[in-house]
């Protein structure tokens, strides 16, 4: 498949797309580039989306430190459950809102890389951004498992940092990116990432090089690693799957032979 049919002149780079690409190039290929809907179940994101939504509503109409306000917002939306209350309370213990001079929630950032080639457009939706103590303090709320000790090691965070970099620089602020884990099972957040200009330049080059690899790739070979494939949303239909399973599509092929035809 020619890259020119798969990739636009300006390649879109989002945190999830880059995370997919670093996990397995064929994951990006199947999902973002070919538009194939997931053939296998993935963990439900309903609770996470709900908590994100409630935090946005709580902060835009009051404070997460105001117990009565939190209770009102949750009750008004019919989500006053112990699980959601606990997640909000854990967030409040880390929320910098009381010291912040400014904030934004569910805000979209975009940054264009023009040269050297290839061009790409990075975009990211950031859950919350606080301005305090000379910092642009960006938060990504998490409700799943913690996979790493440092935000700096997370591929998606590199795209987030790149898109936030200009906003921080324009305001003369240091950029800090923190992943805030809201469920009881995670005791400690990964180490936040303070991103200086030199690091941002390295990140830009890293993303540029990744996009260059996308243009060079004509086979989009999957990693074929059972540990990676086991939870992949394309594991049953992927050409290179090391963990083929039963697809969740109600109608599909009868056998792998049929697929490989």
């Amino acid at each position: 498949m020619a890259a020119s049919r798969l990739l636009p002149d300006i390649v879109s780079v989002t945190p999830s797309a880059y995370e997919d690409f670093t996990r397995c190039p064929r994951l990006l290929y199947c999902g973002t580039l070919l538009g194939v809907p997931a053939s296998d179940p993935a963990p439900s994101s309903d609770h996470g989306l709900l908590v994100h939504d409630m935090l946005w509503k709580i902060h835009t109409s009051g404070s997460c430190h105001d117990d009565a306000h939190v209770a009102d917002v949750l009750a008004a939306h019919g989500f006053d459950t112990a699980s959601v209350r606990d997640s909000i309370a854990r967030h409040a213990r880390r929320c910098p809102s009381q010291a912040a001079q400014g904030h934004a929630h569910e805000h979209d950032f975009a940054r264009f890389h023009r040269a050297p080639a290839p061009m790409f457009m990075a975009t990211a939706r950031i859950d919350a951004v606080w301005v305090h103590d000379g910092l642009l303090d960006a938060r990504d709320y998490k409700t799943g498992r913690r996979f790493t000790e440092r935000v700096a090691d997370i591929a998606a965070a590199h795209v987030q940092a790149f898109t936030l970099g200009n906003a921080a620089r324009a305001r003369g602020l240091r950029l800090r990116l923190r992943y805030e884990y809201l469920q009881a099972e995670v005791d400690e957040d990964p180490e936040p990432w303070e991103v200086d200009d030199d690091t941002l330049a390295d990140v830009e080059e890293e993303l540029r090089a990744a996009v260059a690899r996308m243009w060079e790739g004509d086979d989009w070979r999957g990693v074929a690693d059972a540990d990676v494939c086991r939870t992949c949303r394309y594991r049953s239909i992927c050409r290179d799957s090391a963990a083929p399973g039963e697809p969740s599509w109600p109608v599909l092929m009868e056998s792998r032979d049929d697929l490989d035809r």
Partner: protein
Amino acid sequence: MDGEELPQVTPSLLRRADDLCRRRLAHELRGGKRHANRSSDMRFAVSNRIEADARLAQSTPGAPEPRAFVEPEELPPEQRALYRAAARGYLAEFGASPARVVDLGWRTPLAALGVELVATIGIAAELDGGERELRKLIVGGRRGGRPMSDAVDERVALLRTEQWAPHNLRIVTVDVIEHRSSVTTPEVEPARAEAHEWMSARVATLLELASDARPRAGADCQGCAFVSGCSAHSG
């Protein structure tokens, strides 16, 4: 604007215009994509192919001819798997429905509003009894709970089928992968009158918003075909 082309109004613009970057909105309305950054089209390979083959399968009166669904060997294996599932899904839904498919094209000029309505509204089928049926296909990927279609889809369908289906229209929306469907049978005359009124107001809003044309960097930059020359990304 490209030559004498009318501004192009799409369902996506009708839905998203209020929140869309004004500069992108203005360019999308002008339809000037031949001067734009090239976008990729592989995401639509299966949905375009399944719709084309479904048209071919009923190009003459009768039930759809399964042999018209020829697996596209040029596509990668994952898209071929999707194509096979979609073809079976289509035949499961419409395989026993004798009809003749006609081509309504992609666009309908709305002369009174000075715009062109551009939309793929689905497969236009003339049933044996003379009824008009619009088959809108979804090839999976919709989150559970999200409606199959909305009021914008219905209004656009009513306006684009005004000549073809003046008296009756049945709109069948089918997810050929997930096997979900919804059927609406609007009361054509009052629904179409309402659609005209709504479209008139909506187009006025779109044109007013587009006259601003200020760029705003954000999520709309993703997939924007008009980055070249955008002051939001000049640095």
